[in-house]
């Protein structure tokens, strides 16, 4: 980490600067909104990044809960595979195909389902045991930061364009706000509970939060929504040059999010190792001579991993 991190940080900074240049100077000005719309290059990529991080948190939490017993672990594996197969085949069945909103292709839905299943197994492979929980903390914290950016830039953008700061009946605004609230309560729970139980309680809360989001979505479904329709896959009428810049901006944000997550992940891992080392140290008999040598084992000064 010691060597790769500064290099990647510099590359990310360059990438973000390039995305800023593209967003401010290269992307064409919007015909209706003028230059105000350029905040989209920060608003939308943050939203996508936050949702992706929350989704990873959900997968990590489900896996953490499923891994408690071998039987549930096996059951969860087969359920995920079943969901993947169903999600890959169902969109091509004519009856289901008709239910998809216009502009959403069956192939893209199927690909998404497969990516979700792939993500589940990749996370399970690379984050065994307790590191699933470390991943969950990391993604929740960084996700809340990005979600906050979305909630701050949204009203700034809405005020000149819609004439109001906040549209209370809008689906996406309210679901994003509720999502943010749920994850803040998740972080509060982690902050306030004792270390031995935190992981399981937090994972349970993450699952509840994920169940909640579709219900929030439907409960506001009745109101007319003011927010523009989705840009990708929603039959949007966005200029391809704008879309291009938007995707570049998103890639830059993803790199940045990855970098922050990586640093936070290492920090949390080291914190836990220090905690364990201290716990072991306190178990040692007072007369034992190894107090100094075991200090050196505390893994703060470890090399690249």
């Amino acid at each position: 980490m010691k060597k790769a991190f500064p290099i990647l940080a510099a590359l990310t900074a360059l990438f973000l600067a390039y995305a800023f240049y593209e967003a401010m100077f290269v992307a064409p000005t919007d015909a209706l909104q003028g230059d105000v719309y350029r905040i989209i290059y920060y608003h939308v990529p943050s939203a996508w990044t936050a949702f992706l991080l929350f989704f990873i948190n959900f997968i990590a939490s489900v896996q953490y809960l499923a891994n408690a017993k071998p039987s549930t672990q096996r059951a969860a594996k087969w359920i995920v595979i079943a969901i993947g197969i169903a999600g890959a085949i169902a969109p091509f069945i004519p009856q289901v195909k008709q239910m998809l909103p216009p502009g959403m292709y069956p192939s893209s839905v199927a690909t998404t389902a497969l990516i979700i299943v792939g993500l589940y197994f990749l996370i399970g492979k690379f984050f065994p045991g307790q590191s699933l929980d470390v991943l969950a903390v990391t993604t929740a914290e960084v996700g809340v930061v990005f979600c906050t950016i979305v909630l701050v830039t949204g009203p700034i953008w809405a005020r000149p364009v819609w004439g109001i700061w906040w549209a209370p009946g809008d689906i996406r605004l309210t679901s994003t706000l509720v999502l943010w609230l749920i994850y803040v309560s998740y972080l509060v729970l982690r902050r306030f509970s004792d270390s031995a139980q935190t992981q399981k309680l937090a994972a349970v809360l993450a699952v509840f939060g994920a169940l909640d989001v579709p219900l929030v979505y439907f409960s506001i479904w009745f109101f007319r929504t003011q927010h523009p329709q989705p840009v990708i896959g929603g039959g949007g009428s966005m200029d391809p040059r704008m879309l291009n810049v938007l995707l570049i901006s998103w890639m830059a944000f993803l790199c940045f999010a990855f970098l922050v997550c990586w640093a936070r992940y290492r920090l949390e891992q080291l914190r836990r190792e220090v905690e364990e080392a201290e716990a072991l140290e306190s178990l040692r008999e007072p007369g034992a001579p190894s107090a100094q040598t075991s200090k050196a084992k505390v893994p703060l000064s470890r090399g690249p991993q």
Partner: protein
Amino acid sequence: MRSFWSITMATLTKDIRLEWRSKDALNAMLFFSLLVVVIFVFSFDPLAEESRHIVGGLIWVAFLFAAVVALNQTWARELRNQVLDAYRVSPAPANALFVAKVLGNFIFVSLLEALMAPLFVIFYNLRVLGPAWQLMPVALLGTWALVVNGTFFAAMSVRTRSRELMLPLLLFPVSIPAVISMVAATTSILTGEDSAHFYIVLLLTYDVVFTTACLGLFDTVLQAE
């Protein structure tokens, strides 16, 4: 299966008997929601026409706050004399305990609602313009939604520091869709302008989803160590 229900009923009767003798939770809830109603009356002084539009929100906010008072008591009572630890080591199914606690809270909160609803009618001069019988399923489903998640999160918050404070912090964000549905359904019945069917179905969905999730995960929360 018989032992499941016998454990549930035993815990439920124990809770009701305790509550009947002490009347701690019920008195606190009643007085608390009475205070909320009175404060609302002073804060908003609407005409009868306007009040139909806002009372749905006020009534459920009052019940939500009052329910938290009762829910906090649920598990705190079991901490004394290590009753909860005894439960954990006993072979009794965890869900039997959970169902008993949910039913107990459901009875207490329903009782509170039955006593407080007339007060709202008096203070706000309410007259229902829509189909009034639909208020019954909304009240039952809404109370269940609050109580099932509330009991579950109370079991979680009892494990944390400052546990009385944690319950609303955990419960309110997850309850938002239920609160939206309850308030919207009540308002549309009171004003008679819209149909409440969509929201009643949504509440039912919420109840089914979260009751299943609670039953599936309660064992994990009870045994979390």
